[in-house]
């Protein structure tokens, strides 16, 4: 059967499934809308968290990025998994014990001030908006690639679907659609990976496969290092980033993960404190399945690419090359007119440009897999993008309806009105996100990675000190958050958009890139908070009791 039909069937079926789930599980109260009525079982919550967490970028781009950066790609692998250890050990159980609806709820109550709450809402909105704009764009790109519609139509279709199930279902609906989306996306990612591992190394398990030898008896990684040296690239298994920068970027991604509101809020949805810990364990296990496979896919496809194209006649290349050339993701320019493909590090001689996304997208064709598998990958990529967008949407809508309207502007709002406000703000947020998805401002791509820096610089210290220090007060926490997020915004706009005089790599402070600067801004946040709290009055005994209470286990 034609590929296009398979894709419409796979996407159509998966969307029907999501919408059916949303109708069955629709939310009828604010508790269900914000936190699924605190009734989600830990394994389901683990899957939902994993789907929420893994975006279109994890699904499509990450393996490709690792493929082109080798060891340096490790920052994403460790950074986007290690944060769950921090979540499980330092945040999730205590925030669940606290038992309210949102992250600004905790900051506002723990630091007994609406100023702190307001700052937290501001940070949550900035972080979530930078992130969701990239997701809507991702939805558009996936649609346009697989369904052959233009990106604008793609964004609009994606917007309608998300709107439907997020507005109707709230957190409860989102949670169970995310469980389904996780199953679709992990199946879609693993199937081609397993086939390719079998093809290249004869091993079914990709994680072991990429450490074994190919048919010629040479270890795959040794061969790849050799190919890289020959062509002038840096060695695959060692990086070219400085050790300090790798350290700071990894830390920023880990701490940022633990500080992202749409991830934290997932742990509010379980029944009890011990379930919050269990969910974090399941979530990381489900994420690790994809994250340990991605570096294997990266090695397989990198080796495959070099061996297929390097110094081969352009006319003799396999069919997939031509197909992806048509999309513009691969481009070839015969600079020396010899008809061969020179793929080398030196930009003067290099004749081949390859987009990182191709490493995952072209996999099924490289491995010669049937059309229905490509269709499932399309459904998987859409599942990844939609699930993340929906989770972010909910954070934005609850920040507006709960934190701003209910807690700050109009405390006497009725439950019914608040639920309407929550739904309306979800509609508003999705329209704004769709607008940015269709007209992406130049900064979207740059800021998605930086959302982690912003979360690390603002939320993480305030929440951790709110739990582990009884003496931390509102003056310290507010000053820390404000200084942290402003410093991060300053550094990011200076070096990414050229504001405040701009600057190049050699002007970086201590050689830390903007991606890694979140760790530095986080340290500044800690120092500012602690210093200021020493010179200002300690919190009341009520607050200290609250802290004691969240440290105790359930029902005590």
């Amino acid at each position, binding site marked *: 059967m034609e590929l296009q039909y398979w894709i419409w069937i796979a996407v159509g079926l998966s969307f029907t499934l999501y919408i059916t789930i949303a109708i069955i599980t629709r939310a009828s109260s604010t508790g269900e809308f914000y936190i699924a009525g605190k009734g989600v079982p830990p394994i389901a919550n683990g899957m939902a968290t994993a789907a929420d967490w893994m975006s279109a970028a994890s699904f499509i781009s990450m393996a490709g990025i690792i493929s082109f950066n080798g060891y340096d790609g490790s920052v994403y*692998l460790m950074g986007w*998994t290690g944060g769950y250890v921090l979540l499980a050990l330092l945040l999730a159980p205590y925030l669940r014990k606290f038992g309210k609806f949102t992250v600004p709820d905790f900051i506002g109550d723990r630091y007994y001030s609406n100023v702190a709450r307001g700052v937290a809402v501001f940070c949550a909105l900035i972080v979530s908006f930078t992130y969701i704009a990239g997701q809507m764009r991702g939805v558009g790109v996936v649609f346009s690639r697989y369904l052959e519609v233009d990106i604008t139509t793609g964004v609009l279709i994606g917007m309608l679907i998300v709107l439907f199930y997020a507005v109707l279902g709230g957190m409860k609906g989102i949670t169970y659609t995310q469980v389904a989306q996780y199953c679709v996306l992990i199946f879609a990612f693993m199937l081609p990976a397993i086939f390719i591992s079998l093809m290249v190394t004869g091993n079914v398990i990709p994680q072991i496969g990429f450490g074994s030898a190919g048919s010629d008896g040479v270890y795959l*990684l040794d061969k790849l290092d050799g190919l890289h040296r020959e062509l002038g690239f840096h060695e695959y298994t060692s990086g070219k980033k400085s050790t300090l920068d790798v350290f700071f970027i990894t*830390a920023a991604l880990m701490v940022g993960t633990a500080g992202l509101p749409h991830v934290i809020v997932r742990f509010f949805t379980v029944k009890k404190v011990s379930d919050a810990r269990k969910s974090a364990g399941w979530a990381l296990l489900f994420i*690790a399945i994809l994250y340990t496979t991605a570096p294997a896919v990266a090695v397989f496809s990198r080796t495959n690419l070099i061996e297929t194209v390097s110094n081969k006649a352009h006319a003799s290349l396999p069919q997939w090359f031509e197909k992806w050339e048509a999309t513009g993701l691969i481009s070839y320019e015969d600079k020396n007119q010899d008809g061969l493909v020179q793929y080398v590090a030196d930009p003067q001689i290099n004749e081949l440009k390859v987009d990182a996304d191709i490493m995952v997208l072209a996999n099924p064709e490289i491995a010669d897999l049937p059309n229905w598998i490509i269709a499932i990958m399309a459904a998987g990529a859409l599942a990844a993008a939609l699930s993340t967008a929906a989770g972010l949407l909910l954070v934005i809508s609850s920040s507006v309806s709960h934190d701003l309207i209910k807690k700050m502007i109009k405390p006497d709002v009725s439950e019914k009105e608040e639920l309407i406000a929550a739904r309306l703000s979800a509609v508003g947020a999705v329209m704004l996100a769709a607008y940015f998805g269709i007209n992406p401002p130049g900064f979207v791509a740059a800021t998605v990675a930086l959302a982690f820096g912003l979360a690390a610089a603002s939320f993480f210290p305030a929440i951790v000190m709110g739990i582990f220090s009884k003496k931390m007060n509102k003056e310290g926490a507010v000053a820390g958050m404000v200084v942290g997020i402003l410093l991060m915004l300053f550094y990011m706009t200076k070096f990414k958009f050229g504001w405040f005089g701009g600057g190049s790599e050699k002007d970086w402070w201590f050689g830390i890139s903007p991606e890694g600067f979140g760790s530095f801004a986080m340290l500044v946040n800690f120092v500012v908070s602690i210093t200021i709290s020493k010179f200002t009055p300690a919190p009341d005994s009520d607050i200290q009791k609250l802290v004691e209470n969240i440290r105790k286990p359930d029902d005590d």
Partner: protein
Amino acid sequence: MNRVNNYWKTNLKYLVILLIIWFTVSFGFGILLADSLNKIQMGGFKLGFWFAQQGAIYVFVILIFVYIYLMNRLDQKFKNQK
């Protein structure tokens, strides 16, 4: 009050130990010591590279499940003391 204090202190002790392991496998083996560990070969993997792209992630998963086990045990003990 003593009972609550003990519970919290034991929890903190678990946290410190587990976070030291967390730091060692990722920032230690995977980053700071990666170059030296890369001289050791494990099958087709250089060890530092393996920790950075595989090993650290496996250890992360194990750490969380160990913490779940330890805390469930501690919660039970805490309940029995009542």
